[in-house]
């Protein structure tokens, strides 16, 4: 019975991503025991774990969008980082009313945020049009906004860093009132829950998988492959917009050059770490989410171990290689073969009696 349950657990799709996350955390048990210490300082929670969950929020939100795009189109949206900057720029520009630094809002907060997200949705629609309608490879299509996005953001902010020194705007990257838990954590969770609900309560998940696996066959069973692919890019754009607003709120400014910098690659990595095939098809949203937290846990762990920022990528790369190899089909097959050999050896031995 024990063997059965063990097998059940290991055959779950989320098994490996979770093991990877736990492995990263285990290193801390040995190396930095106070990693797991959570304390209340100045009325807010603090500790490495809180930092991980808080800092990972933008990445988690991006990973959700990236998962859907990957599944439906078999490619990735590499413009998400730049689109974050666009959303932040639009949002801050409206809030400041054109000034470089303001201490009071020039427009309602809700309006500005919606406008920012709308801008990012338009960016997503642009990508979606290129990929779904014109059949341009995702990497190439999204390369356009990857390069141009930050330029557009600069244009919107007129080349300056726009500061919004207003407490209410800092909420999204900070804390709501006296709540000790950082707001980005809530936003990430809400995004995950809403996306999961949409996938579970509508047929969108099935459609996305179907289109990602076989577009022509999907069309013949009555699915609008073009529309579904397009939709995933719009969703991905919206996610980038939300992440952009959170990132901008953290620094209460629109820094077109730095918001979401290199985050697109981490988002793609999160999707891969989650056990998703980057060639599209079947996907696992929670896998990507866990992947995103794993990446942030890794970064924070390395910082906690006093690794210098400029050496960080090297260590990160080593760990990523290990995780990816562990999840590769070749390695899994190797394991299965070893197991089969062991099994046949024991049966052979029994037969010999």
């Amino acid at each position: 019975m024990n063997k059965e349950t063990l097998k059940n657990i290991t055959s779950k799709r989320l098994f490996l991503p979770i093991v990877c996350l736990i492995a990263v955390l285990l290193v801390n048990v040995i190396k930095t025991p106070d990693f797991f210490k959570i304390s209340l300082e100045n009325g807010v929670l603090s500790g490495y774990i809180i930092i991980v969950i808080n800092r990972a929020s933008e990445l988690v939100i991006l990973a959700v969008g990236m998962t859907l795009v990957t599944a439906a189109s078999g490619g990735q949206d590499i413009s998400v980082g730049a689109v974050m900057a666009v959303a932040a720029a639009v949002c801050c520009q409206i809030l400041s009313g054109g000034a470089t630094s303001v201490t009071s809002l020039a427009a309602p907060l809700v309006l500005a945020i919606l406008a920012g997200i709308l801008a990012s949705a338009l960016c997503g629609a642009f990508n979606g049009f290129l990929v779904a309608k014109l059949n341009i490879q995702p990497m190439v299509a999204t390369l356009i906004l990857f390069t141009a996005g930050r330029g557009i953001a600069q244009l919107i902010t007129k080349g300056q860093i726009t500061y919004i020194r207003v407490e209410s705007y800092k909420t999204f990257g900070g804390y709501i009132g006296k709540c000790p838990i950082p707001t980005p954590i809530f936003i990430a969770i809400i995004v995950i829950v809403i996306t999961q609900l949409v996938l579970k309560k509508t047929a969108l998940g099935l459609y996305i998988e179907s289109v990602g696996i076989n577009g022509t066959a999907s069309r013949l069973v009555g699915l609008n492959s073009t529309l579904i692919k397009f939709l995933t890019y719009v969703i991905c754009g919206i996610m980038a917009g939300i992440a952009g607003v959170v990132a901008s709120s953290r620094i209460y400014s629109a820094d077109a050059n730095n918001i979401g910098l290199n985050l697109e690659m981490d988002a793609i990595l999160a999707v891969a770490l989650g056990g998703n095939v980057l060639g599209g098809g079947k996907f696992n949203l929670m896998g990507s989410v866990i992947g995103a937290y794993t990446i942030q846990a890794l970064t924070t762990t390395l910082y906690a171990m006093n690794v210098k920022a400029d050496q960080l990528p090297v260590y990160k790369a080593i760990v990523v290689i290990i995780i990816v190899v562990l999840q590769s089909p070749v390695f899994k097959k190797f394991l299965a073969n070893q197991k089969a050999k062991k099994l046949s050896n024991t049966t052979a031995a029994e037969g010999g009696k």
Partner: protein
Amino acid sequence: MENSVVLDMKDVSKTFPGVKALQHVDFKLRKGEIHALMGENGAGKSTLIKVLTGVHDFESGKITMAGTDIVNKSPQDAQSHGISTVYQEVNLCPNLTVAENLFIGREPRKFGFIDWRIMNKKSAELLKDLDIDANATDKLEECSLAKQQMIAIARAVDMQCQVLILDEPTSSLDDEEVEKLFVLMRRLKGQGVGIIFVTHFLEQVYEVCDRITVLRNGTLVGEYEVAELPRVKLVSKMMGKDFDDLADIKGDHKKLEKFVPVIEAKGVGRKGSIKPFDFVANKGEVVGLTGLLGSGRSELVRAIYGADKPDSGTILVNGKEAKISAPIDAMKLGMAYLPEDRKKDGIIADLSVRENIILALQAKKGMFHLMSHKEMEEAADKYIEMLQIKTASRETPIKSLSGGNQQKVIIGRWLLTNPEYLILDEPTRGIDIGTKTEIQKLVLNLADQGMAVTFISSEVEEMLRTCSRMGVMRDGKKVGELTGDDLTQEGIMKAIAGGDENE
């Protein structure tokens, strides 16, 4: 005599999760013989081939070639041992030229660079030698499926193989092309090549083969000389039971008395694929479409179904003019279309049997009306049982089912949408005789229940057994219809050939 054996497989076993695909199978191939490997879908033919060519590894047994044990870890390994394979679905690169495909991986080189001139010249010679009507510099995707198949064989032939495996090579060829292939096979046989021929066509086995090995449910039934095994015996060995295929199944079904048109196409056409045609499908009637490969059979139904949007003409559904611009429109009007190319247009490979079955109905219901899990499971179970789909469970990915069972899943998918008009484009291609008969019977039963069915098949016999009216296609044009006494093998051949047409 023993040293004439080129390939000897002994006691080979292979297990997939939940399925014993091969159990202690022996197989022996001699020099210069054509050896048929027969069995129903799921009997283990493909698995045996894949084990031999290194696609799959196997648990026990050994493979000996020319007296030495060999282990193939990959198709490349097998090739270096002189085993070449041509699969049913051509495994070449459609975006490369014919010459590139012929020499891929072994390109003639000059100073380390590919010598295109020599490559194209050699290819042209090879094609001419084998009487294949294709240019070395054409893109492969511009060639018909049949030509692609011949090119795949040409590639294998040019690699000096000792063992040539042909896995269902004829299922997409017309008679003339099959004949050409046989000429080629006989020539190779004369050169001492051992050929393993996997096919479902009994006639072809008796035409070219010397020996037959029969598999059933992953076990060896036996090896026979062709002359010693009459057809009926072969079939009963494959099925493990007596065989009623040749019985007249049409006789039991009622004749249509009232003609109520469900679909009427008037002057429907699409530039470059099908000339304007008229077509009527009546309630309770099975209409066939016959013609050579590429004569426009599929194009006609695709135009009606909206898979390729027609640019002229009108389509009436139940007497009302319909606007069909995409398959979903046609589905909402009660149409269902089983496409010709199962792998490319039919299955969603990584999705489960359940998801594949419910997909069309779900698409019809729309994104916001997700079927409950219970509904899905009931639907899947119903068709798995009704069509006797052999699958480990309803959650098994469809790609791990055998071809015939995949086809049944697709049929189930469409039956679930409860269509008024069902289009079946080559539903029995590459499927064993038992299942074929089942599908034919099913088609007639559906018609009895009032469904309008259009049935396309390359096998004239099969069409005669199911259809009561037949449209004849030639060169992208519907040239006539046959009914009643004209519905004979001879009549159809004449119509296809266009003997009495004044053109």
